[in-house]
């Protein structure tokens, strides 16, 4: 790196086209993001994850949201509809399928709105063709993915397999552990995704039901302030409103002739999307206080995970501590861009790295194995799926088994 970007004191650059302190039609005051996140008094609220999404969107100056029902995001999508009817959004409607919804979101984004939508599970996969299109077209749309099972037989229950399919979509991917994370990620996600040097779609992900349908205490700023709106004329590509040059402009022309020029342009375009993702680190690190959180890195055993598996890991650490086994923790907040250097550094002294996940594929473990030296240290597991909870005891058991200690399987309990 040619420049240090780890200072949490760095100022985040906001859109400049509305005057701070002026009010929107709902009497909310446009507020600098730095003020909103660092200098505003937060008050505790006891809310479900869906209600937290509503609370975030209420102060996010969103232009358009398009909705479609699929469990477990339906409630949040409907609550955003209530915000629309109260006048907090300019446009909201129900699309006909997730594929169409993501197209409608793209249309709104091409035309210069800040756009938010939600989806889950099979809906994410039905919409899938749109995500690399969003990224390639530099549309900074935010999609909140409340993850659930995707494969047959049908299940509406939590399962994070769908994230695996999004890894190379070109979208930024942030994985919330808690409702508080989700609130922060939604607001901060807009700021990072819309930076002119980033300008990519962002998936703010949470584990369905565990986050969306449980109540938690969340610190919220007052709702009479709001983010400054999106400025379409800071975009790295022309806005499609016939108000900016060039008018002879197709978003985006085909690059598929059979010649080297075309191949090179397409390859460079793909590189540019990845470069934009790299650039997001600089804006994300101060806003999220780093791409990872860490505790007790001096310990030989580490749990490294993302989402609600981190919460289960925290409890497992407490249980192990009671037995005299000391374990540290790494919480990964951004899956894309992946915190390569941070994870390498955080795990450099660990002898055993456990990666608990709510899916069968173990995609997070693969990501970690691909970047850490001596990757035999990485234990991909424990895994649960299909809606199973992950009792902390399961993580405890996995670690103890691995260490050659005696365990009593929790599946025997009750017998």
């Amino acid at each position, binding site marked *: *790196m*040619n*420049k240090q*970007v780890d200072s949490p004191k*760095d100022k985040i*650059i906001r859109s400049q086209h509305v005057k701070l302190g002026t009010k929107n039609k709902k009497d909310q005051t446009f507020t600098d993001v730095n003020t909103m996140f660092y200098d505003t008094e937060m008050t505790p609220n006891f809310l479900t994850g869906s209600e937290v999404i509503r609370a975030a969107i209420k102060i996010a100056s969103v232009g358009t949201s398009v909705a479609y029902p699929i469990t477990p995001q339906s409630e949040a999508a409907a609550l955003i509809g209530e915000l629309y009817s109260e006048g907090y959004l300019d446009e909201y409607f129900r699309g006909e399928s997730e594929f169409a919804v993501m197209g409608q979101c793209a249309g709104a984004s091409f035309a210069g709105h800040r756009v938010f939508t939600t989806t889950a599970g099979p809906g994410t996969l039905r919409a899938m063709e749109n995500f690399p299109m969003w990224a390639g077209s*530099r549309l900074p749309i935010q999609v909140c993915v409340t993850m659930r099972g995707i494969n047959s037989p049908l299940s509406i229950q939590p399962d994070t397999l769908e994230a695996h399919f999004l890894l190379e979509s070109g979208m930024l991917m942030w994985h919330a552990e808690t409702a508080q994370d989700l609130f922060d990620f939604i607001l901060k996600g807009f700021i990072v995704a819309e*930076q*002119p*040097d980033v*300008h990519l779609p962002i998936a703010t992900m949470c584990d369905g039901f565990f986050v969306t349908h449980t109540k938690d205490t969340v610190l919220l700023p007052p709702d009479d302030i709001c983010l400054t709106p999106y400025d379409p004329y*800071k*975009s*790295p*590509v*022309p806005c499609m409103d016939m*108000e*900016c*040059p*060039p008018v*002879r*402009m*197709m978003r985006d*022309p*085909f*690059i598929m*002739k059979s010649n080297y*020029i*075309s191949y*090179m*342009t397409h*390859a*460079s*375009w793909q*590189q*540019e999307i*990845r*470069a*934009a993702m*790299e*650039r997001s*680190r*600089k804006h994300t690190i101060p806003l999220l206080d780093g791409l990872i959180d860490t505790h007790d890195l001096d310990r030989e055993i580490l749990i490294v995970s993302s989402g609600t598996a981190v919460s289960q890991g925290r409890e497992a650490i407490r249980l192990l501590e009671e037995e005299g086994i000391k374990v540290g923790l790494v919480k990964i907040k951004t899956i894309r861009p992946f915190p390569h250097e941070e994870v390498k550094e955080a795990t450099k002294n660990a002898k055993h790295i456990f990666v608990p996940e709510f899916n069968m594929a173990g995609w997070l473990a693969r990501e970690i194995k691909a970047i850490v030296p001596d990757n035999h240290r990485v234990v991909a597991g424990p895994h649960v799926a299909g809606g199973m909870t992950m009792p902390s005891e399961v993580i405890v058991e996995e670690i103890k088994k691995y260490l050659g200690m005696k365990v009593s399987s929790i599946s025997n309990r009750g017998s």
Partner: protein
Amino acid sequence: MSQYQVKPGPEAFLPPSAASMGIVLPDPGECHIEGRIAPEEEGYEYAARKLLGAKVPTLFPGPLVLWKWNEKAAKKAAAIRALSEAIPARLIPMADYRPKYPKIDPEAEINPNHPNLTIWHNKIDVCIFIGVHCHQANLALKIIRGGTDCFTMAMCAQAGHEDACLSFRDIGVESIMKLMDAVNKLKKEGVKSQAVPFKQISMNRKGRVD
């Protein structure tokens, strides 16, 4: 591993993007020179020296300054013209971004999909992109670094371009004037333009107008 530097090419069959090699963009008040973060003022002098030392210094104005969609654009265009005369430098437009190959005169126009053709045809050794949308500028800058030995610069109204060998950020009319001032100052100090004599290309439907 040593720090990657954003040097003129030809670098590779498919060169990496500078961002993927760990080059981070400058903050307000800064610029980057070959990947090194420097104060903006240093950049003006560095750029001025590069322009004066070049045989074929060239400015590539893009749609945002070629089209008079607002008064600011017209002022920037006037400043760019003045800068080109001060150096002196060729002006070659990137009027829009549609793939034009092969129906293009690559000496008279530059296109983000094959900018290397314009560099090769004109033997351009130093250039500045200005008023080009960032995405398209990045494509062009990287392709040029891949296949030519041109020293690329970008005067960007947003966050800058790490794929250029030198880039400024947040630029306005004043920034263009500052660069011109730096050129004039060096000239006063006795630095002479090395530009080979040229005439700006102008075209009609039949081709070049001499």
